[in-house]
């Protein structure tokens, strides 16, 4: 069966189709949970916000516009709900606005991608570098390569300009590109001295 695209699914949902509503939930629950938990390390809060998000979605569907990217719409809504939960500061005393600037992203050397490509050494250096990115950079990285959002959508979601998204992306890429270009021996050295700021020292190293 031809898979329904976002626009068709969303249109059905807006017309009050309960199956479409459930399909949207089933399709995107894990994406929402994963993104939410990376921003706020409180599983119950994230689940509550997802709950609110879907209840609001159903009761307010008559005022919603059409969209061709449901995932982006849901992620943006969840982010707003998390911010509101944090700023209202009622039920979740531990959460403050500062927590929302976090973005938990742990790179995993044991992932099947790394093993399949037999790139463990380079990957290790890369991961160390990626680990040192700012939460903002990590969030861009995640939304771009994992959630496949466009730069425009990421800019909207993070409330920054598209230029700033490019800049955040490139600053990460610039440093990492160097690592990818280094000969094996240099990478070994780099790894031996790691925990110093790789993104800087990588450039320094080549000079």
């Amino acid at each position: 069966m031809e898979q329904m695209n976002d626009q068709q699914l969303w249109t059905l949902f807006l017309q009050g189709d309960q199956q479409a509503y459930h399909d949207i939930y089933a399709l995107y629950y894990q994406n929402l949970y994963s993104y939410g938990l990376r921003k706020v390390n409180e599983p119950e809060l994230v689940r509550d916000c997802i709950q609110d998000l879907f209840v609001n979605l159903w009761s307010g569907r008559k005022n919603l516009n059409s969209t061709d990217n449901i995932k982006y719409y849901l992620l943006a809504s969840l982010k707003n709900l998390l911010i509101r939960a944090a700023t209202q500061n009622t039920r979740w005393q531990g959460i403050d606005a500062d927590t929302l600037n976090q973005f938990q992203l742990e790179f995993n050397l044991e992932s099947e991608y790394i093993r399949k490509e037999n790139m463990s050494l380079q990957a290790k250096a890369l991961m160390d570098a990626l680990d040192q990115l700012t939460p903002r950079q990590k969030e861009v990285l995640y939304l771009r390569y994992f959630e496949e959002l466009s730069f425009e959508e990421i800019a909207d979601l993070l409330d920054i300009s598209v230029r700033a998204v490019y800049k955040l992306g490139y600053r990460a890429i610039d440093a990492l590109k160097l690592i990818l270009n280094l000969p094996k021996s240099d990478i070994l050295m780099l790894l031996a001295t790691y925990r110093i700021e790789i993104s800087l020292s990588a450039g320094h190293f080549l000079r």
Partner: protein
Amino acid sequence: MQKFDDYSFDDFLEDISFIRFVKNGPQGNDDVWQQWVVSNPPNLDTYSQARRYILTAISITPVKDTEENRSAVWAKINSRIARQAKIAVMTKRIKIWSYSAAAALLLFACGYWYVTSQIIIQTGFGEQRSVTLPDNSIVKLNANSALRYPRAWRIHGVREVWLNGEAFFRVQHLNKQPQQVKPSERFVVHAGVVQVQVLGTEFNVKSRRNHVTVSLTKGKIGVSTGKNNPQFILAPGEAVRYQDKKIVRTAINRMNNQPLAWTKNQMIVNGITVAGIIENYEDTYGGHIILENPALGNKRIDGTISMTSKDATIYMLANLLNATVEPRNNGVYYIKLNHVK
């Protein structure tokens, strides 16, 4: 396909189709990226770097909620939506109820107002007016008079009007079988203590200064002062006058002040006192006439006085009395006899 040959590291990372190819592998046998890779392109090294970069970037420890939690959240969402729907239905019901209650109340108020309210027609001093009632009866209202009748004329069964002042009635005759008179065929005029019962006829009612005079010109009417009091049946040319609980029955042509003259803007008098004329004037035009010599009020007069306007009437009266008129403030006129030299 050729365009991938010029791709830089950044170009690869910006191409979402490349990202998907790296993440998901080739899709089908004719995958564009797969075909391009096997064509041994010049920038294959850059391609590998970009590929490794993406692979590393997505090699993150997955975060996933359990299937139980996912279902539990879904169940909570559904129960909240069901509750909302129930509340929506209830508020809708309450809304409908309160709207209907308000509408019923409004309807009742309107109905009450319609049934109980009256139409009031009032003439000022010196003003006459002809009124056509809903049954096409015609009422000619003299000056300084008021006629009231129910707005819901037809609902009330009996045709009823209340008069204060003087009016000439030409009542539409509705009765078809003289043996059976339906209530709706009656026409009743209430004037002070007097009720005039009518079927269809022409008559004058004057209700001023605590006396009521009913004069019939055509048809037949019954006049009484209440249900239990005797009713006078008048024939054309007859009149009945109620004053100080006394009832005087007379013939119109023997009255000293002809009851229908006013409809032609006249006063036709036959032995009426000057005081009686002045009363008539004051009832019609308001104001006051003061006689220099009060004894003049007892003088009796015969003739026709034209009442086309206030001034014309008063000067005509002065002329008749061989007197002069001096206007004072507030509509007061002072009448002084001319001294004969």
